[in-house]
């Protein structure tokens, strides 16, 4: 069987998510082609050609593809799928946007956010925000799969020398026009991709306190900032900081929860973190049941002490 992987890239370089999605594809087939969609994405296509084990790279370019407009992406991928048995897409915001559109055009029920490939028909995916895992068998002739990249180990980005084939397919999106883009300019890493996340909860008591306590700690250790739903609902932190079932699902190497009690809906968003630290003055807070390191302490004294300790050791 032949499979098509859609690359995630910034036109210059591939993101790690591409290498992880190729890893998922390798558990299905050895005939892996990578599709690079973009605008001025030649370098990304050359990078894709170097991925170990890739048979061929397809490059389609155009302005709407540079913005990953779903209708344009659909127009490129759907005709290509005549030659493939499966489509694998990293479940980034762009991937989540266009993959179901392709699936519906192919009359296929998508396999969303796959975390394990059991065999060519059978996949494991999280449901209920990761509170359960379902193993499903798809009866569709072709598979459309979005892959949760954090669940797979990246393949080598070097060692391959696949040919790059340029596609001339038209990619129009007549009903949709790109207006603008506001990317967050922050020295902090992005919440979904950060290696360390520091999150604050309702105990912080105010937006000022959140900024004064959580943000300096995050900056000291190069972390992204998160928040519990309670803190967001109370207006202490903006909505896009929210970690949880209805917010962002994160799985960093280190998650530090400050003044967060650990409501189910928050735990659902962070319990796959490698190491969890909880700082809370309530010894009975549920967060301590999932924390690797619990510190029963008032954040008001604990965080300054932690900052000082980190400062001592040069961090």
């Amino acid at each position, binding site marked *: 069987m032949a499979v098509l992987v859609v690359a995630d890239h910034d036109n210059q370089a591939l993101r790690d998510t591409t290498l992880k999605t190729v890893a998922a594809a390798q558990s299905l087939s050895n005939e892996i082609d990578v599709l690079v969609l973009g605008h001025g994405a030649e370098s990304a296509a050359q990078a894709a050609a170097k991925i170990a084990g890739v048979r061929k790279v397809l490059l389609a370019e155009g302005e709407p593809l540079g913005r990953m407009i779903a209708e344009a992406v659909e127009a490129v991928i759907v005709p290509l799928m005549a030659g493939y048995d499966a489509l694998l897409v990293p479940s980034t*915001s762009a991937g989540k946007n266009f993959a*179901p559109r392709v699936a*519906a055009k192919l009359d296929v*029920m998508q396999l969303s956010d796959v975390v394990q490939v059991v065999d060519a028909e059978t996949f494991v995916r999280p449901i209920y925000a990761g509170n359960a895992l379902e193993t499903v068998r798809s009866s569709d002739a072709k598979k459309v799969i979005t892959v949760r990249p954090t669940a797979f180990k990246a393949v080598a980005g070097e060692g391959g020398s696949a040919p790059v084939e340029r596609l001339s397919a038209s990619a129009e999106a007549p009903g949709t026009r790109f207006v603008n883009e506001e990317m967050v300019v922050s020295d902090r890493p992005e919440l979904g991709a950060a290696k360390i996340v520091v999150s604050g909860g309702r105990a912080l008591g105010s937006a000022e306190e959140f900024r004064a306590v959580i943000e300096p700690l995050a900056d000291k250790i190069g972390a992204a900032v998160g928040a519990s739903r309670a803190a967001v609902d109370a207006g202490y932190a903006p909505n896009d900081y929210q970690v949880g079932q209805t917010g962002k699902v994160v799985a960093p190497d280190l998650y530090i929860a400050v003044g967060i009690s650990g409501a189910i809906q928050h735990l659902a968003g962070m319990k796959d973190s490698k190491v969890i630290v909880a700082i809370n003055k309530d010894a009975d807070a549920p967060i301590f049941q999932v924390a690797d390191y619990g510190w029963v302490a008032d954040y008001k004294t604990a965080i300054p002490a932690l900052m000082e*300790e*980190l400062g001592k050791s040069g961090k």
Partner: protein
Amino acid sequence: MKVLVPVKRVIDYNVKVRVKPDQSGVDLANVKMSMDPFDEIAVEEAVRLKEKGSATEIVVVSIGPSQAQETIRTALAMGADRGILIQHDAVVEPLAVAKLLKGVVAEEQPGLVVMGKQAIDDDNNATGQMLAALLDWPQATFASKVELTGEGANVTREVDGGLQTLSVKLPAIVTTDLRLNEPRYASLPNIMKAKKKPIDVKSPADYGVDPTPRHTVLKVTEPAKRQAGIKVESAADLVMKLRNEAGVL
């Protein structure tokens, strides 16, 4: 302009999900059910469009068991005008839901469909995009701001790393993200009024759609449980352990 809002009845987001011991699924017996939180945001957005005079009528549709009428009533109490229940007791996957909604769109001819980006039970994040594909309509998913401009809508979308604004021609599909609005609580008088609003009951066959799932669930299991770890007593202790024991600093 008519606005169509599909809503799903799901397990309440505050309920602790329990996997059945026989691994056949999640225990839904005697569990609080509510409208999907993203759908609630969609209903709120539609009601605001009506309050601004941009929308003339809000039709709410749900696909599910007869109890999904309660979910429709909730939307009616928030300000929607009438409801359609496509009654089906078994699981309906996003692809079949999209096909059913395509049938509803053909009948109702809305200028805009606003719906949640994702149901918090199956977490597929697919139905809106699939409906857009089946209708060949533009889509603006994960919306944090919607502005109607006459023949179109400017929709700001939450994308990885920031925001993207698209201008889509109507009719179009918009799926909602968390930041779009804060849904209102229905007032008691509006809850009473909602009881009198009409709900049509239909079946998948009325739309010529076969709702048989394409996926067979072989098993549902609990993810590996985390063990509670150890307690630390001081900042020095914590930093030392993170550095030397866990190796994450």
